[in-house]
């Protein structure tokens, strides 16, 4: 008997659509779920250490364990006033360029010069690193009308500085002084 080609050749090739219904169902459930759960505004928090006097169980100060005579602390303080920033430590107050007035005066357009503040703090940090035990802490104080946003901006300027694309840590341990000037 001679070879007879298969008859299947004549079967009709039907083009079938993918059944997308289950995927559609999945989408319809997943998208509303993710939409309701997603946060479009990113929140963050700033840790704040109360000065030991105000909060009894505030974070322990490593310098406090040393004997009193050996304790040498920097006690860096930034004061925010309506004329600009004053930077001071336990030893001295940094003066502005003309020898008086705020360390970093406001810019000519009346805004605070946060960039200059970061630069100045970087200088302080480089000198204080390794010399003082509290070379990562800073106390902020402000005049009573200073806005919260300015305070947060100052904390940002005192936390890290960007030196030519390289991020350097300055004084991440921030405390607020309770005394209002």
């Amino acid at each position, binding site marked *: 008997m001679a070879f007879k080609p298969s008859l299947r050749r004549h079967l009709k090739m039907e083009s079938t659509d993918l059944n997308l219904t289950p995927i559609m169902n999945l989408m319809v459930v997943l998208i509303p779920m993710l939409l309701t*759960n*997603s946060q479009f505004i990113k929140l*963050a*928090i700033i840790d704040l250490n109360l000065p030991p006097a105000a909060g009894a169980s505030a974070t322990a100060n490593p310098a406090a364990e040393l004997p009193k005579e050996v304790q040498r602390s920097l006690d860096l303080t930034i004061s925010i006033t309506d004329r600009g920033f004053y930077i001071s430590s336990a030893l001295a107050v940094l003066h502005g360029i003309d020898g008086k007035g705020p360390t970093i005066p406001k810019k000519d357009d009346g805004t605070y010069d946060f960039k200059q503040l970061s630069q100045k703090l970087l200088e302080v940090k480089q000198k204080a690193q390794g010399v003082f035990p509290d070379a990562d802490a800073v106390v902020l104080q*402000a005049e009573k009308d200073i806005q*919260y946003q300015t305070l947060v901006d100052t904390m940002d300027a005192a936390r890290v500085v960007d030196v030519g694309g390289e991020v350097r840590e300055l004084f991440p341990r921030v405390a607020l002084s309770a005394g209002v000037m």
Partner: protein
Amino acid sequence: MAFVPSKIKKHKSELEVGLNLTSMMDMFTIILVFLIKNYSTEGQLITPSDFLHLPYSNIQKAPEKGLDVIVSKQLIMVNNEPVVPMTDVVKNDPTVMDRGVIKPLREKLLYFSNQSKKMEVDYGIKFSGKVTIQGDKELPYSELVKVIRTCGLADYPNLRLVVYRQTD
């Protein structure tokens, strides 16, 4: 003469019109990928209050859970319950203020801290003393210090300031 239905139309083959879902699927896929990318498994630990504008900061620290203290321009709230109107605090009203401490806020915080301490004894849930402060960005420093001072004196020394994360 009565209506005679068209004889041509009667014999028209019934064409099945399938809905073309491909473009819709594309769209859904893109939305889905975008949403999954934005999805955080922690969920929303802190809900920003509607009454205030938080300040902006470039800090990247993720939010933590804590007792909510909201300081808006009108009033101070703890866990979304109004505690004291801001005007009394600003005026240093002696019925509300006591040497820089906001009395109603202190009582409220002490109530919550006592409850948390009881929970610590009964169920072993550690009392962290964490409080998240949501302050309006125009809040003056003097009022902020009053709130912080009160928190410190009411067994909540671990303060967390809630800010919007700046994206740049």
